[in-house]
């Protein structure tokens, strides 16, 4: 553990660096973010007028905060590794795709495949998420305060998906070891996904996720847990209809 550098800590109170995408090209923003090195003083960034731009703040690998003032297009915060991104608007398809660590908060809604293939970090959608939320998730934690669409958590491998609202059709189809917590109704479960008992360790895990996502006034006990029945792990001729 390195000693805390007091002067560096004070530097962090500097005003945030502002990028106005109506005046600057997106590549300049992303290049500036990629140029950051460990210990940089530029820890607070603000992006103005994103107007649905694709790939805003992808591939950031430093522990900085980025406030995006408006709605974004495809792949915002993709591959994020350690930064804290807040989208003050809605996000297009693939927000936080393949996130490694850090956090992304979307104040509005998210389109298809939010958090797809994510390996770590926390993705919070304060509105609704669309279809295929958490598809193939590999360790990411996703908390959706509204509803999620169909085919969410398809082939989800690990991590946690928490939904305060309802889930669409075929939730958790062909799921591996991810845990799914849904407070509302589930339209239908996908192949090999089943309701599971909520044991004390799950209540504790879920409460921790709700706390990290800043969700208040909701109890872990209000959710149901879903996960893999583990009958599709290996080929079994008796399961041929389910494949």
């Amino acid at each position, binding site marked *: 553990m390195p000693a805390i550098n007091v002067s560096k800590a004070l530097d962090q109170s500097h005003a945030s660096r502002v990028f106005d995408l109506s005046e600057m090209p997106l590549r300049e923003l992303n290049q500036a973010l990629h140029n950051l090195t460990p210990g940089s003083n530029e820890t607070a960034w603000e992006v103005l007028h994103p*107007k*649905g731009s694709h790939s805003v703040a992808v591939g950031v690998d430093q522990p900085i905060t980025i406030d995006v003032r408006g709605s974004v297009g495809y792949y915002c915060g993709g591959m994020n590794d350690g930064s804290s991104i807040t989208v003050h608007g*809605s996000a*297009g*398809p693939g927000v936080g795709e393949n996130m490694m660590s850090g956090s992304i908060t979307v104040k509005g809604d998210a389109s298809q495949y939010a958090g797809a293939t994510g390996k770590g970090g926390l993705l919070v959608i304060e509105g609704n998420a669309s*279809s295929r939320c958490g598809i193939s998730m590999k360790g990411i934690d996703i908390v959706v305060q509204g509803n999620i*669409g*169909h085919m969410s958590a398809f082939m989800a491998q690990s991590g946690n998906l928490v939904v305060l609202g309802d889930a669409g059709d075929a939730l958790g189809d062909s799921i591996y070891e991810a845990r799914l917590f849904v407070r509302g109704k589930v339209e239908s479960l996908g192949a090999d996904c089943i309701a599971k008992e909520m044991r004390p360790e799950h209540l504790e895990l879920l409460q921790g996720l709700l706390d990290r996502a800043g969700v208040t006034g909701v109890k872990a006990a209000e959710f149901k847990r879903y996960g893999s029945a583990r009958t599709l792990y290996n080929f079994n001729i008796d399961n041929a209809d389910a494949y």
Partner: protein
Amino acid sequence: MCGIVGLFLKDKSLEPQLGSMLSQMLISLSDRGPDSAGIAIYGAPTGNEAKITIQSAKPERDFRGLDAELAKAIGAPVSIAVKSTHAVVRTTPVKIDEAREAIQTLRPDIRIMGAGDVVEIYKEVGLPEAVVDRFDVRSMTGTHGIGHTRMATESAVTTMGAHPFSTGADQCLVHNGSLSNHNNVRRELIREGMKFETENDTEVAAAYLSSQMAHGKNLGEALEGTLSDLDGFFTFVVGTKNGFGVVRDPIACKPAVMAETDQYVAFGSEYRALTKLPGIDNARVWEPEPATVYFWEH
């Protein structure tokens, strides 16, 4: 890919800006499809004329003198407004079918883009900006319109393969996706007497809707039918004389976002297409649900 847009005005004061608003929406999606682009604009009905939008690869040869020859052939007054490779033929509504047949006889190389009381359709190979400039779409007024920029998958990159496709009076459709049962549906529609100009899958979807509406269904019911009768990927945006509809297939891979205010209903493949619309920051913006029909009528 492909990019599609649609705009249905509720506020009459915006009608003079329809062409410029729709053009800007389509141009913003240029990188979703570089092959060809097209726009259909529904103008205000005049009550005493009908329009046929025609296209020719040799407009100077084909459009010269056509008004007089056509007027003589159908025995009614005809006017022609030429815009680059396209022209809008105007005549009395009762003569519209006769005029259509006469055009094909008088000028066999002319392609009919669409016909009706209010619709005009412009489409060509090239980027949206080039197509919009070529036909001066920005200056057009109207009540609603749809547009498309194409990344071709199912048929050749030609003017006739561009969207919108029109297969019935004042009806047209743009499509993002690809249909897998279009050959079969085309065969069934041909048996019913529908005519096709291309091998394109989207033309089949347009003809399917025209056929359903010809059987008495309204736009909403016709769109509902696509969910069971068409197989493949689709987000459709459809215009009729006084209506505007949207439907996505049940898998809904193809992106879609909508916005509604007191002034308009707008559709875009992406939010980028909507960002310059008036009052967008306070609009209700949502992603249309899979397998759900949305439609509005004036």
